[in-house]
């Protein structure tokens, strides 16, 4: 147990982050393609939370509660998932370039999605696409992890370096096949492409209801095992000497990280840079102790993705302000995170020198 001073510092940080996330959520609830005044948004929230029985015109309360709120909650969940998974990967692999997709989860998920799409079109057209895609993607993602694990296992032990390499190899393979299938697929490849660049539009309550427990479980596990991650960062042999059951911890950490990433990818496609950048930012602010790094990365990831999502969905307004043309432009979230993440990442590299 760390000193009281440190615990106080950590608690304060987490408290501030929680306030920030709640404020971000409320502010972004007022932003959307249909202009709804902030007071009305507040009234809607109070109405729904405390069952006041008010009615609103123009479907405002449906827009705020059934469209925007699930979207924001999903952004939080996915931001939390990707940041914690990213921090975990960076700790496990002892590599600052690691991100949640490093062992092939993303390409496996994309591959599963496109297979699911084709199967749904040909054989299961009675079940709507938005139900089939997440399940197929999830199966693809988890299946890939298993494959990576099996291929990297040697004599009861799994070397992280081997996993990394196997992950890269499988990623390339699945990416190539996915690209090819997307290309020859008859029909509208637009929605698949959009998904592969990260999509948080058109999220509904049931998406949140399914992902919430899964991501919560995974993140809680990662927080509990964050002490083991601290040990890992000094080397596996040292960790063993410190009393860590290395192989078991590794398995649990990887599984939890893979689980939350697979859920995120299944519902929202591949959103890059979040899992990579957020842990680095938080490491600078709170330090490398994973017991604070993991939860604070989670919260900051949520904040970041709420704003990235709002920007991506309302890019039309910026487009209109810049070009004078009113046109609906929805930037995929992955593009927004890359636009911010890439320059920031370069900055990080410069500073390290």
């Amino acid at each position, binding site marked *: 147990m760390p000193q009281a001073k440190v615990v106080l510092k950590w608690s304060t940080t987490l408290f501030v982050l929680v306030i920030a996330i709640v404020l971000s959520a409320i502010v972004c609830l007022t932003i*959307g*393609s*249909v202009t709804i005044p902030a007071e009305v948004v507040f009234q809607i929230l109070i109405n729904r939370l405390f069952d006041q029985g008010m009615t609103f015109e*123009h*479907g*405002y309360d*449906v*827009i705020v509660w*059934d*469209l*925007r709120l699930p979207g924001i909650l999903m952004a939080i969940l996915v931001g939390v998932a990707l940041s914690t998974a990213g921090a975990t990967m960076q700790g496990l692999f002892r590599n600052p370039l690691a991100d949640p997709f490093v062992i092939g989860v993303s390409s496996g998920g994309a591959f599963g999605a496109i297979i699911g799409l084709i199967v749904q079109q040909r054989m299961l*057209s009675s079940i*709507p*696409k*938005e139900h089939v*895609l997440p399940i197929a993607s999830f199966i693809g993602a988890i299946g890939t992890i298993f494959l990576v694990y099996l291929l990297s296992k040697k004599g009861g032990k799994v070397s992280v370096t081997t996993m990394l390499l196997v992950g890269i190899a499988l990623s390339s393979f699945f990416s190539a096949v996915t690209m090819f299938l997307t290309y020859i697929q008859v*029909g*509208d490849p*637009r*929605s698949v492409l*959009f*998904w592969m660049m990260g*999509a948080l*539009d*058109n999220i*509904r*309550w*049931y998406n949140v209801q399914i992902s919430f427990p899964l991501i919560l479980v995974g993140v809680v596990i990662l927080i509990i095992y964050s002490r083991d991650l601290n040990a890992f960062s000094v080397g596996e042999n040292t960790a063993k000497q410190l009393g860590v059951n290395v192989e078991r911890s590794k398995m649990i950490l990887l599984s939890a990280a893979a689980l939350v990433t697979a859920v995120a990818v299944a519902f929202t496609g591949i959103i890059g840079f979040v899992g990579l950048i957020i842990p680095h930012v938080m490491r600078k602010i709170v330090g490398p102790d994973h017991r604070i790094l993991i939860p604070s990365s989670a919260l900051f990831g949520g904040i970041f993705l709420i704003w990235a999502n709002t920007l991506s*969905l309302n890019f039309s307004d910026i487009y209109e302000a810049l070009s004078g043309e009113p*046109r*609906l432009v*929805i930037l995929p979230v992955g593009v927004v995170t890359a636009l911010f993440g890439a320059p920031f990442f370069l900055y990080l590299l410069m500073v390290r020198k």
Partner: protein
Amino acid sequence: MKTKKFVIIITLIIIASALLPGCIESNEDDNGGKNEPPISVTEVLELNESKIITIDNTDYNFTVKKIEDPTVILALNGNDSMIMLKSNEPEETDTDFDGVNDLEINVTEIAGSKVTLDLRSTGSASKYRYITDDMGQNVKVPKKVDKIVSMAPSITEILFALSVGDKLVGRDQASNYPASAQDIDIVSTYEGVDMEMLLVKDPDIIIMDKSLDFYDTNYNKMKDYGLNVFRLYPRTIIDVLNNIETIGLVTNTLPTAKELTDGLRDRIDTVETRETLKPKVLYVIYYDGTTSPWVGTSSTFSGDLIITAGGKVAVDDEMGIAIQITVEEIISLNPDIIFTSQDDQWPTPSRDAILNDEALKDVNAVKNNLVIDVNADLVDRPGPRIVDGLELFSDYIAI
């Protein structure tokens, strides 16, 4: 003896060379090898005078617009001017005005405000007439049209409705109605026009819809090869009726065309007299629950159908093409009726996606079970069946 032989041979060679150019002299004409004697006329025109000059059975209306020795600016048939130099070849203007190809025009003299024109018909004029298409071009159309190429499914439908479907020698890939249209060879796919196929077919006239060739790529290609292309550009139901009559004119079936449009007009009038409560109508082209929906607007055909049937168009826009809106906007617009575009060949999931979307459940159209699949071909194709689409819309819009 050798010298004599030599002289004879040289003489023969000289004689042969003198005759040779004459032997190989080609008769340039563009009417398939038949030589018809050109017909010449010399006329004197005054500045600002318009004169109708008849050459080879065809009337040409010339106007002298400006004289600046040695240049003269002429207008032909009221269209774009040609700049001519005295006794020189006519300079090409940069509009493609086909009338110039059939006439050789020479300004032989300029005297004050009088211009002497020497006009020679190249012999093909009597075989053609000029009809203005929707893009303002005076298109050269043969008087007898036996081989037609259609570059749009709506045009194919019109041609069959006018009973000249048997004259079609080529169609675009999307032309699938009526069923017999599918037996016609495809000369144009979604990737563009197949020039080789098209040239082999040697059509008398090619009819296309400009809205399907948004950037004029196919049109320019065909013009580069010197083909006669007639462009339609219908935007409303009335435009469709006019197009039917224009195609009737082009294919020499104007009486049939007028009969057809009279019948269609009667049906439209019947629809317009029905009483409605002016419901708000949204036309959804594509929605699958994962990307923002594509919808028709006030400036697309669906918009004109809705207005004519007595409804209000949900989405206002001027661009004339389908646009994307957000689900938030659909909720806010709260349409009373939603028509979802459906296709037999490529089924769209729109209706199911809308009915299954929990965020849309309070929208009027969804609540009142007024989300209706309509055959896209009846709404998006500017052909005779658009009135079928109009009547279908009216069935739900009228009381």
